[in-house]
């Protein structure tokens, strides 16, 4: 998997959002009873990030484990297929965790100078849930991809 080799722009605010969510969930043990964001909240967050455009499938490759080894730090890699030229590039990528108290995980901003729209980071997942990525292109089109990540109690492998 890749590291931050294309240096996308993660703002300080987004990092704070990430750690804030983690702090809320800390110390609650195996089964936190914190309310997850509902579907409507996730859709609202997506709308806020990329506007009203209808989303298409394709172009986004999400690299996530099917089952998290540690829900507190789940690696995520994302790559968006794009020529990354002045006339056709990925403007931003937004990652949402449907089952976290605050669904906004990260927003990544790109320019053609990045060369590729590719990044990886780690996030906390409260429980088994869908991770959603949306990518906004320079022409205004929006792509969307969803992957389910299981967070299990574990312990019974054959």
């Amino acid at each position, binding site marked *: *998997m890749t*590291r931050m080799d294309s240096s996308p722009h993660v703002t300080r605010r987004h990092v704070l959002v990430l750690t804030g969510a983690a702090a809320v969930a800390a110390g609650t043990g195996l*089964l936190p009873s914190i309310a997850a964001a509902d579907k409507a909240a996730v859709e609202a967050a997506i709308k806020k990030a990329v506007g009203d455009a209808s989303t298409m499938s394709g172009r986004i490759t999400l*690299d996530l*484990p*099917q*089952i*998290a*080894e*540690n829900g507190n730090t789940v*690696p995520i890699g994302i790559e968006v297929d794009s020529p990354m030229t002045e006339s056709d590039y990925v403007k931003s990528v937004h990652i949402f965790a449907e089952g976290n108290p605050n669904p906004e995980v990260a927003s990544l901003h790109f320019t053609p100078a990045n060369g590729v729209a590719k990044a990886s980071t780690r996030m906390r997942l409260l429980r*088994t849930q869908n991770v959603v990525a949306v990518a906004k292109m320079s022409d205004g089109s929006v792509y969307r991809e969803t992957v389910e990540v*299981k967070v*299990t*109690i*574990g*312990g*019974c*492998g*054959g």
Partner: protein
Amino acid sequence: MFTRRDFFTLAAATATLLGDAGRAARGAIRQEITQDDLLRFDPLGQVTLLHITDIHAQLVPLYFREPSVNLGVGEVHGLPPHITGQDFLRRFAIPAPSPDAYALTSVDFAALAKNYGRVGGLDRLATLVKAIRAQRPANTLFLDSGDTWQGSYTSLETQGADMVQAMNAMATDAMTAHWEFTYGTERVQELLEQLEFPFLAGNVRDTEWDEPVFDGIAYFERGGVKIGVVGQAFPYTPVANPRYKIPTWSFGIQENRVRELVEEARAEGAELVVLLSHNGFDVDRKLAGRVDGIDVILTGHTHDALPVALEENGTLLIASGSHGKFLSRLDLDVRNGKVANYRYRLIPVFADAIKPDPEIAALIKEIRAPHESTLSKVLGKTESLLYRRGNFNGTFDDLICNALIEERDAEIALSPGFRWGASLLPGQEITLEDVYNQTSITYPAAYRTEFTGDFLKVVLEDVADNLFNPDPYYQQGGDMVRVGGMSYAIDPSAKMGQRISDMRLLKTGDPIDPAKNYVVAGWASVNEGTDGPPIWDVVSKHISQKQVIAIPENKNIRVVGG
């Protein structure tokens, strides 16, 4: 007056009564099958792959009952390996009773075991491997899919060293791993220093730099064919086993990584690409459908034994069973970087029909000698067939759960759904070795704690989804957690969170109250700092006190729904 014939009958009967069916079995199995029969094979092509998997450190012959329940959900419902018993016999046209029926199913197991005897034993395997190598010296590649270093008293005592020594002596060509990792990072690295062949695990990366920890590919040339062997360790090792033992190693299926390694092998000129895998059969079948260019997957982990090679997207899937019970032989004719033809045989290792290899037999004796008095210590006797394998409770698990409830004064017992562990026949003595064969792990603490009814359901639902998630990539390959003191119903085809119902406390018959606390005893917790005596002490004490073990058929789990 005794005739000569009477004497033989008597001798055979005595052998059975003494709990050593061996002498009688030797006669029966040899009348039907010989070592030459087991080795009979019309060689084909340039390459002979020999495969074993999941031998779980079993150096000496044992009994192993195949599952009577091995359900498949979703797309794999009713497909091999998810067929058992009579269905299995019909599907593969195996007559019964017969040595093959005994080896491959649970049908009439206890009776057939008395006739056909024990299976496996590394010295018997060695005889077969050496004979085939002698026949095809430049063509044979001997591969092990892992779960080799764990599962016995001697492997636990030597922290895996006995098996490294034994597999070196077997001249193994490469292995991958799963339970090996439960000895912890440092010990695995020490053992790798002693290992004389490649340890392949392309899907293990370090958590700090995200770099490969082990080699992913090894190359061999056999019969003029360049072979690339890609190794895939059990993807969910840090989830299914304690993460704290290997805190800096990350696993996962990593399908893209497998694809890269397969492409790399082809680019390096491999004409035959073999995935030596510990994914589990259903995961490998899905992987074969999605990753092109793999000629053969030598599967492991789920302990399935199939008498045929299954084909998926041009990939041959081989399932070689467990516990040294089978040796797979796959002959391949490779033309222009493709398998043009193949011939396959799953060879049952009938211990009494095979002459032990003297070199490996001597090594096994040497390994076991310092521990002989411990291994052979008799704790009691069983009147029932004791076994573990199967989706739900096995009788040996029921024995362990009874021990946990009585010795730890608990209302409910939980025991892990491992797929390893030798079986014992009715009338057999139970030795300390037998107990270790069911419990030898590096995190053995038998905990005693309180769970709410709600949390008990969460545990059952969680494990059920690891077993019955319709997407194989989400399956961890164990069986259902074993439960004592409680009954429940399960609908394998239902959604996560909706499979378990009608949980009841056995001693009262009352429904489990979600809000109430229950005293629960269990073992094999993956959490660090779990307290309690080792499980083998709990079980041994229980057997010693009871002396005679009788386990009735378990009727506490109802399978419902589609």
